[in-house]
Protein backbone atom coordinates (compact mmCIF):
# COMPACT_ATOMS: atom_id res chain seq x y z
CA UNK A 1 0.00 0.00 0.00
CA UNK A 2 1.39 3.36 -1.02
CA UNK A 3 0.69 6.47 0.91
CA UNK A 4 -0.64 9.74 -0.43
CA UNK A 5 2.65 11.33 -1.47
CA UNK A 6 3.42 8.24 -3.52
CA UNK A 7 6.61 7.02 -1.94
CA UNK A 8 6.92 3.42 -0.92
CA UNK A 9 7.64 3.84 2.73
CA UNK A 10 6.24 3.29 6.17
CA UNK A 11 2.62 4.39 5.96
CA UNK A 12 2.06 5.72 9.45
CA UNK A 13 5.46 7.38 9.87
CA UNK A 14 5.25 9.21 6.58
CA UNK A 15 1.67 10.35 6.97
CA UNK A 16 2.45 11.82 10.36
CA UNK A 17 4.32 14.50 8.40
CA UNK A 18 1.09 15.37 6.65
CA UNK A 19 -0.64 15.64 10.01
CA UNK A 20 2.19 17.90 11.19
CA UNK A 21 1.74 20.07 8.11
CA UNK A 22 -2.00 20.36 8.74
CA UNK A 23 -1.43 21.25 12.40
CA UNK A 24 1.07 23.97 11.38
CA UNK A 25 -1.37 25.36 8.82
CA UNK A 26 -4.18 25.19 11.37
CA UNK A 27 -2.13 27.27 13.84
CA UNK A 28 -1.26 29.79 11.13
CA UNK A 29 -4.86 30.17 9.91
CA UNK A 30 -6.32 30.18 13.40
CA UNK A 31 -4.13 33.13 14.35
CA UNK A 32 -4.15 34.93 11.00
CA UNK A 33 -5.40 38.50 11.09
CA UNK A 34 -5.71 38.07 14.83
CA UNK A 35 -9.10 36.43 14.50
CA UNK A 36 -8.13 34.48 17.58
CA UNK A 37 -7.97 37.27 20.12
CA UNK A 38 -6.08 35.19 22.64
CA UNK A 39 -3.15 34.40 20.35
CA UNK A 40 -1.13 36.75 18.12
CA UNK A 41 -0.54 36.03 14.44
CA UNK A 42 2.67 34.40 13.30
CA UNK A 43 3.77 37.61 11.58
CA UNK A 44 3.16 39.77 14.63
CA UNK A 45 4.98 37.29 16.84
CA UNK A 46 7.92 36.92 14.45
CA UNK A 47 8.24 40.68 14.03
CA UNK A 48 8.58 41.03 17.78
CA UNK A 49 11.07 38.19 18.12
CA UNK A 50 13.05 38.48 14.92
CA UNK A 51 14.99 41.56 15.88
CA UNK A 52 18.35 40.59 17.29
CA UNK A 53 21.30 39.87 15.03
CA UNK A 54 21.93 36.41 16.48
CA UNK A 55 18.31 35.32 15.98
CA UNK A 56 18.35 36.73 12.46
CA UNK A 57 21.57 34.92 11.55
CA UNK A 58 20.29 31.63 13.02
CA UNK A 59 17.10 31.80 10.94
CA UNK A 60 18.94 32.88 7.79
CA UNK A 61 21.56 30.13 8.15
CA UNK A 62 18.86 27.51 8.66
CA UNK A 63 16.86 28.92 5.75
CA UNK A 64 19.91 28.70 3.48
CA UNK A 65 20.62 25.15 4.62
CA UNK A 66 17.05 24.12 3.74
CA UNK A 67 17.70 25.47 0.24
CA UNK A 68 20.98 23.65 -0.34
CA UNK A 69 19.62 20.51 1.32
CA UNK A 70 16.59 20.23 -0.93
CA UNK A 71 18.01 21.65 -4.15
CA UNK A 72 21.46 20.09 -4.09
CA UNK A 73 22.29 17.69 -1.31
CA UNK A 74 19.41 15.31 -0.68
CA UNK A 75 20.77 12.79 -3.17
CA UNK A 76 23.63 12.22 -0.74
CA UNK A 77 21.22 11.44 2.06
CA UNK A 78 22.56 8.82 4.48
Amino acid sequence: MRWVLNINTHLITANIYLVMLFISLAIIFATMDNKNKRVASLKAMMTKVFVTRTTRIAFIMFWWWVGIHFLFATIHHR
Partner: protein
Amino acid sequence: MNQLKRGFSYWTLAFLITTLLQVFRGSPLDALVFSSGTIILLISSFYPKVHLPGKWFDLVGRWVGVLAFVLLVVFYLIPRHDIWMAYILWAMLPLVLALAWVGPHHAPRMSDPRLHRAQHIWIEWALIVCFWEYAANIIGQFAASNESFPTISLVMDPIMDTHIGKFAFIAAWLWMGYNLIFRLNQPSDEVGLEH
Protein backbone atom coordinates in the same frame (compact mmCIF):
# COMPACT_ATOMS: atom_id res chain seq x y z
CA MET B 1 14.18 35.82 25.87
CA ASN B 2 16.53 33.83 23.70
CA GLN B 3 19.60 34.51 25.79
CA LEU B 4 21.07 31.95 28.19
CA LYS B 5 23.08 34.72 29.73
CA ARG B 6 24.43 37.97 28.45
CA GLY B 7 26.07 37.45 25.08
CA PHE B 8 25.35 33.74 24.64
CA SER B 9 22.30 32.65 22.66
CA TYR B 10 20.23 29.48 22.69
CA TRP B 11 20.65 29.46 18.91
CA THR B 12 24.36 28.69 19.31
CA LEU B 13 23.46 25.66 21.41
CA ALA B 14 20.81 24.55 18.90
CA PHE B 15 23.32 24.76 16.04
CA LEU B 16 25.96 22.90 18.07
CA ILE B 17 23.51 20.03 18.78
CA THR B 18 22.56 19.93 15.10
CA THR B 19 26.26 19.85 14.13
CA LEU B 20 26.73 16.78 16.35
CA LEU B 21 23.71 15.14 14.75
CA GLN B 22 25.15 15.79 11.29
CA VAL B 23 28.46 14.26 12.38
CA PHE B 24 26.53 11.23 13.66
CA ARG B 25 24.65 11.13 10.37
CA GLY B 26 27.95 11.12 8.49
CA SER B 27 27.16 14.13 6.35
CA PRO B 28 30.28 16.31 5.98
CA LEU B 29 28.51 19.10 4.04
CA ASP B 30 25.78 19.53 6.64
CA ALA B 31 28.29 19.24 9.47
CA LEU B 32 30.34 21.99 7.81
CA VAL B 33 27.29 24.24 7.43
CA PHE B 34 26.10 23.84 11.02
CA SER B 35 29.58 24.04 12.58
CA SER B 36 30.21 27.24 10.60
CA GLY B 37 26.83 28.49 11.78
CA THR B 38 27.75 27.71 15.38
CA ILE B 39 30.97 29.73 15.07
CA ILE B 40 29.23 32.64 13.32
CA LEU B 41 26.51 32.73 16.00
CA LEU B 42 29.14 32.64 18.73
CA ILE B 43 30.97 35.56 17.12
CA SER B 44 27.68 37.42 16.65
CA SER B 45 26.81 36.93 20.32
CA PHE B 46 29.86 38.88 21.43
CA TYR B 47 30.73 41.16 18.53
CA PRO B 48 29.49 44.76 18.73
CA LYS B 49 26.46 45.66 16.64
CA VAL B 50 27.07 47.08 13.16
CA HIS B 51 24.20 48.59 11.18
CA LEU B 52 23.69 49.65 7.61
CA PRO B 53 21.69 52.91 7.57
CA GLY B 54 17.98 52.27 7.02
CA LYS B 55 17.74 53.94 3.61
CA TRP B 56 20.71 51.92 2.30
CA PHE B 57 19.21 48.75 3.70
CA ASP B 58 15.92 49.51 1.90
CA LEU B 59 17.78 50.23 -1.35
CA VAL B 60 19.68 46.94 -1.11
CA GLY B 61 16.35 45.26 -0.36
CA ARG B 62 14.88 46.45 -3.65
CA TRP B 63 17.83 45.09 -5.66
CA VAL B 64 17.81 41.83 -3.76
CA GLY B 65 14.10 41.55 -4.59
CA VAL B 66 14.95 41.80 -8.29
CA LEU B 67 17.79 39.30 -7.81
CA ALA B 68 15.35 36.89 -6.15
CA PHE B 69 13.21 36.82 -9.31
CA VAL B 70 16.32 36.08 -11.40
CA LEU B 71 17.29 33.32 -8.99
CA LEU B 72 13.80 31.84 -9.19
CA VAL B 73 14.27 31.33 -12.95
CA VAL B 74 17.89 30.20 -12.65
CA PHE B 75 17.20 27.66 -9.90
CA TYR B 76 14.21 26.33 -11.80
CA LEU B 77 16.26 25.82 -14.96
CA ILE B 78 19.21 24.12 -13.25
CA PRO B 79 18.56 20.44 -12.49
CA ARG B 80 18.48 19.38 -8.83
CA HIS B 81 21.82 18.11 -7.51
CA ASP B 82 23.70 19.83 -10.33
CA ILE B 83 27.03 21.26 -9.15
CA TRP B 84 26.01 24.74 -10.41
CA MET B 85 23.17 24.68 -7.92
CA ALA B 86 25.77 24.32 -5.18
CA TYR B 87 28.02 27.06 -6.64
CA ILE B 88 25.17 29.59 -6.73
CA LEU B 89 23.87 28.65 -3.28
CA TRP B 90 27.33 28.91 -1.74
CA ALA B 91 27.80 32.28 -3.47
CA MET B 92 24.54 33.45 -1.91
CA LEU B 93 25.59 32.55 1.62
CA PRO B 94 28.04 35.44 2.29
CA LEU B 95 25.50 37.92 0.88
CA VAL B 96 22.59 36.78 3.03
CA LEU B 97 24.77 36.48 6.12
CA ALA B 98 26.17 39.97 5.55
CA LEU B 99 22.64 41.36 5.22
CA ALA B 100 21.56 39.56 8.39
CA TRP B 101 24.66 40.91 10.13
CA VAL B 102 24.18 44.59 9.25
CA GLY B 103 20.39 44.71 9.47
CA PRO B 104 18.65 46.96 11.98
CA HIS B 105 18.72 45.79 15.56
CA HIS B 106 15.94 46.25 18.09
CA ALA B 107 15.76 44.78 21.53
CA PRO B 108 13.08 42.04 21.69
CA ARG B 109 9.79 43.48 22.86
CA MET B 110 7.17 41.03 24.03
CA SER B 111 4.90 43.19 26.09
CA ASP B 112 1.62 41.79 24.73
CA PRO B 113 0.57 38.55 26.50
CA ARG B 114 -0.86 37.27 23.22
CA LEU B 115 2.63 37.39 21.74
CA HIS B 116 3.92 35.31 24.64
CA ARG B 117 1.17 32.73 24.06
CA ALA B 118 1.87 32.64 20.33
CA GLN B 119 5.57 32.29 21.01
CA HIS B 120 4.97 29.35 23.35
CA ILE B 121 2.71 27.61 20.85
CA TRP B 122 5.30 27.93 18.07
CA ILE B 123 8.30 27.00 20.23
CA GLU B 124 6.59 23.90 21.61
CA TRP B 125 5.34 22.88 18.19
CA ALA B 126 8.79 23.46 16.63
CA LEU B 127 10.41 21.34 19.34
CA ILE B 128 7.95 18.48 18.73
CA VAL B 129 8.66 18.57 14.98
CA CYS B 130 12.44 18.77 15.59
CA PHE B 131 12.39 15.82 17.98
CA TRP B 132 10.36 13.79 15.51
CA GLU B 133 12.71 14.66 12.65
CA TYR B 134 15.85 13.94 14.70
CA ALA B 135 14.35 10.66 15.97
CA ALA B 136 13.41 9.61 12.42
CA ASN B 137 16.96 10.36 11.33
CA ILE B 138 18.65 8.54 14.21
CA ILE B 139 16.34 5.50 14.14
CA GLY B 140 16.70 5.41 10.36
CA GLN B 141 20.49 5.30 10.75
CA PHE B 142 20.27 2.36 13.15
CA ALA B 143 17.74 0.60 10.93
CA ALA B 144 19.98 1.30 7.89
CA SER B 145 16.84 2.14 5.95
CA ASN B 146 15.68 5.32 4.24
CA GLU B 147 12.12 4.15 3.99
CA SER B 148 11.22 2.73 7.38
CA PHE B 149 11.57 6.04 9.20
CA PRO B 150 11.66 8.74 6.52
CA THR B 151 12.81 12.27 7.23
CA ILE B 152 11.04 15.29 5.75
CA SER B 153 13.52 15.57 2.89
CA LEU B 154 12.99 11.94 1.88
CA VAL B 155 9.25 12.38 1.99
CA MET B 156 9.50 15.51 -0.16
CA ASP B 157 11.89 14.03 -2.71
CA PRO B 158 9.16 12.73 -5.07
CA ILE B 159 7.47 16.15 -4.97
CA MET B 160 10.74 17.98 -5.58
CA ASP B 161 11.37 15.80 -8.64
CA THR B 162 8.30 17.25 -10.38
CA HIS B 163 8.52 20.62 -12.18
CA ILE B 164 5.64 22.17 -10.30
CA GLY B 165 6.90 20.90 -6.95
CA LYS B 166 10.40 22.21 -7.55
CA PHE B 167 9.12 25.59 -8.76
CA ALA B 168 6.76 25.93 -5.78
CA PHE B 169 9.54 25.05 -3.37
CA ILE B 170 12.00 27.54 -4.89
CA ALA B 171 9.39 30.33 -4.96
CA ALA B 172 8.33 29.70 -1.35
CA TRP B 173 11.92 29.36 -0.19
CA LEU B 174 13.08 32.62 -1.84
CA TRP B 175 9.98 34.45 -0.58
CA MET B 176 10.68 33.25 2.96
CA GLY B 177 14.34 34.27 2.75
CA TYR B 178 13.43 37.74 1.50
CA ASN B 179 10.93 38.15 4.30
CA LEU B 180 13.39 36.94 6.90
CA ILE B 181 15.98 39.48 5.83
CA PHE B 182 13.90 42.51 4.87
CA ARG B 183 10.28 42.27 5.96
CA LEU B 184 10.25 40.80 9.46
CA ASN B 185 13.28 42.81 10.32
CA GLN B 186 11.39 46.01 11.00
CA PRO B 187 10.65 47.94 14.15
CA SER B 188 7.91 45.96 15.82
CA ASP B 189 5.51 48.90 16.03
CA GLU B 190 4.90 48.58 12.30
CA VAL B 191 2.84 45.45 12.83
CA GLY B 192 -0.21 46.50 14.76
CA LEU B 193 -2.34 44.13 16.77
CA GLU B 194 -5.89 45.28 16.22
CA HIS B 195 -8.31 44.53 18.96
